[in-house]
């Protein structure tokens, strides 16, 4: 049987206000299933989110939660972790919140390898504010701010966070819930900066404008285009063109930031005496 997620949800805040077919609910539910499997303590876990439809997740989650200003979830999370290194700290963010206004904080959190689990709901658009392009909107796609097509190059956030210093990097999608559960289970258990890109559909402000159909069609698009890393590697360069690899893409061990900081505290105390 699938893990019971009811105990992690604030029942009085549900049903949630995400649109019909929005993938955010699927990502959140499978994040909770992964959390249940990781064996971490609900009462020792803090969830911090920024602004956006994705950011609303913290309101539905029965953990200690903090819903903060746009793009700044990682700064609050860094403060929480520095003051209480024993806590599990999870950041829920969107592609606008985490890669545009908050992009700077993302690369620096990775650089420090601070033990924060960053879950970025990537729906390729600013959903909440009705469809402006984000740094994750593919080139050529349309948005309210790119009615003739987006000329910007979108990020590969997994490559970006990996090269910035994250020690666990994974990508999943709403279409592949079992893979998502596994990614979350292992990502939550990792010590160090964990970056999980969760691809999700926004049928209302992305799908409709880009003629991708409704939620069901968008999920079928994910099925075709987001493929397991092993399969991806077996493809020719040409076949890879319109595909994106998923799974745990990178994992490594490197000294974690709060551990280094504890040593500094000990050294400073020692030199006082």
């Amino acid at each position, binding site marked *: *049987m*699938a893990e019971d*997620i009811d105990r992690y*949800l604030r029942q009085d805040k*549900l*049903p*949630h206000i*995400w*649109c*019909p*077919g*929005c*993938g*955010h*609910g*699927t990502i959140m*539910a*499978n994040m909770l*299933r992964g959390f249940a499997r990781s064996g971490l303590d609900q009462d020792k876990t803090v969830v911090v989110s920024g602004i956006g439809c994705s950011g609303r997740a913290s309101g539905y989650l029965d953990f200690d939660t903090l819903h903060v200003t746009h793009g700044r979830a990682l700064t609050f999370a860094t403060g929480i972790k520095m003051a209480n290194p024993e806590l599990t700290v999870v950041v829920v963010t969107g592609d606008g919140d985490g890669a545009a206004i908050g992009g700077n904080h993302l690369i620096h959190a990775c650089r420090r390898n601070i033990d924060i689990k960053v879950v970025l709901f990537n729906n390729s658009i600013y959903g909440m504010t009705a469809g402006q392009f984000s740094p994750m909107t593919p080139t050529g796609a349309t948005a309210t701010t790119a009615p003739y097509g987006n000329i910007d190059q979108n990020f590969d956030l997994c490559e970006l966070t990996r090269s910035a210093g994250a020690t666990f990097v994974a990508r999943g999608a*709403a*279409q592949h*819930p*079992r893979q998502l*559960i596994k990614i979350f289970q292992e990502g939550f258990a990792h010590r160090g900066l964990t970056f999980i890109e969760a691809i999700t559909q926004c049928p209302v402000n992305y799908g409709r404008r880009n003629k991708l159909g*409704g*939620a*069901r069609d968008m*999920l*079928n698009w994910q099925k075709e285009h987001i493929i397991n890393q092993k399969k991806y590697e077996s493809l020719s360069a040409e076949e890879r063109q319109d595909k994106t690899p998923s799974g745990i893409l990178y994992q490594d061990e490197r000294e974690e930031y709060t551990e280094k900081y504890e040593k500094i505290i000990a050294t400073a105390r020692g030199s006082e005496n």
Partner: protein
Amino acid sequence: MVAKKGRVKVARPDWCKTCGICIEVCPVEVLELGKDRIQIIYLENCVGCENCELSCPDFVLKVVNEDEE
């Protein structure tokens, strides 16, 4: 102990937003959209695979042991 077979249940009927994702991911014919919520029409077809439960964005469906239906 032999594992009991699981079957789908509409655990939170009021939370359904009729997106149809559960129908899309179901390998057989069990579910159908009613006027304002999902309906189980052929429970006997359900193989308990949990695809619908894991994909529903609104936490409506649950696969439960047959004796809990």
